[in-house]
């Protein structure tokens, strides 16, 4: 079991690392651009030689149009079609398939899976879906609703390649996922805004959605200390 978990974690980390590097390079470019634009305006306090953290993390809840909702759900749904056969290679080895799909279509059962899956893996994936939607500007209720739609689509139309849709997964993925996501959201925001490098690393690891370009809650803070009139100001840039 430990071997399997390690294997699964390695796969997930590889995917996250790939996507993280991709988004980090974009972030790096944006940061350099901003630094260049504001290089003459950023001053440290001459007495303490300190300045505020560069970024403040949070969530900006906003309205989404129906078209935007459909598009986002569509992208996530497409990704589940891409990733499911990778996580469940037996789909390629005859265990699943079109016949199995037809047999399972429309069925709803209580699955007999171990608690590792029903109480850990599914809620964990639900929490990351919830955080993904939160990162994209959905408020908590909307993020829960989007998580419910996404996980129901996956459960009813993708996972049936290998097993019928289950009552536990339909309920626990979005509900326990949102509960877990709510906790991760608070913990990661605390860590990301702690100003501590290790805290930031753990914060991003817990909530990888904060690394992606679609994350709308990052605020760029530029402290400015004016020596002449002994005044100070903070300029904030929202990264939409």
């Amino acid at each position, binding site marked *: 079991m430990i071997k399997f978990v390690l294997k699964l974690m390695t796969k997930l980390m590889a995917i996250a690392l790939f996507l993280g590097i991709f988004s980090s390079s974009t972030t790096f470019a944006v940061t350099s651009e901003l630094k260049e634009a504001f290089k003459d305006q950023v001053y440290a306090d001459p007495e303490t030689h300190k300045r505020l953290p560069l970024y403040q993390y949070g969530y900006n809840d906003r309205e989404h149009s129906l078209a935007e909702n459909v598009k986002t759900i569509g992208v996530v749904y497409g990704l589940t079609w891409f990733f499911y056969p990778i996580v469940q290679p037996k789909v390629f080895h005859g265990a699943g398939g079109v016949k199995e799909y037809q047999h399972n279509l429309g069925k709803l059962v*209580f699955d*007999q899976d171990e*608690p590792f899956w029903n*109480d850990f893996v599914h809620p964990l994936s639900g929490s990351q879906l919830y955080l993904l939607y939160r990162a994209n500007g959905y408020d908590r*209720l909307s993020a*829960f609703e989007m998580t419910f739609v996404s996980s129901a689509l996956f459960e009813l139309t993708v996972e049936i390649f290998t097993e019928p849709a289950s009552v536990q997964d339909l309920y*626990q993925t979005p509900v326990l996922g*949102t509960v877990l996501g*709510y906790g991760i959201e608070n913990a990661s925001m605390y860590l990301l805004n702690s100003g501590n490098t290790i805290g930031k690393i753990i914060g991003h690891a817990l909530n990888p959605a904060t690394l992606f370009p679609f994350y709308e809650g990052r605020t760029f803070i530029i402290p400015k200390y004016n020596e002449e009139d002994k005044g100070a100001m903070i300029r904030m840039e929202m990264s939409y």
Partner: protein
Amino acid sequence: MKAYFFLITILIQLMGSLTYAQEQAQIHSQNVHAGNPIEDNFNLKTGLSLSRLFQTSALIPTHNRNESHSENTGYGFNTSVGYKWSSWEVLFASDALFGKLHDMTFKVDPQEVRGDGSFRVFTLSPLIRYYTPYSFWNRWNIYASAGPTWSLHTFIIVNNLNNTDFDHKKRISFENRGGSLNLGVEEIVPYKETHPAFFELGYSYMRSHRIFIVDASDFKDVKTLKQGASKDFSGHYFIFRFGITLF
């Protein structure tokens, strides 16, 4: 005698504090009307559960009354998703409970399997909840809820007591139907963003309608070895739940 007077005093105190609190109970709904009704009426709750389960397994046809009983304590967590009007709420609630099993016998054709081990329960209930106009100390609103329950009861026999050929990697699982009735109190607060707490006592009854024997040797791929109709298992449990509204 002293204990009796103490109990009477406590009861009088409680009766005195049981005030008519229609206005307080409706503060929330007033806020709902003032703001976004969908956002404010919706709620997601979570908390911990502690239960006492009474389980009965019929060994040969029930009319002969040859049954095996077991009483166990279960621990777990609860969640619910609901939509609230001023006094009524419609919700989906779920419990996941885990516990140790002590000496119980199951009829698994053609043999009887007796042993110790553990159990786990997953329940799902669509409920209707009514918030009464009464409260304790103007702070805790009394409510009651009821509804049908579907559950999955899974038993893992680790210590086989009658030496039957039943591997500890196998599970005996029952799909049950039943109902539940709950009585509880919820903290009266003007905004749900302040995470109102709740305490609840519930009773559930269930009777099996299907039995499954599954092989969990490979935890990634649990296989169903046998399944069929069964009314051989029944149970009821008292449960104490406490938790908060997340949002």
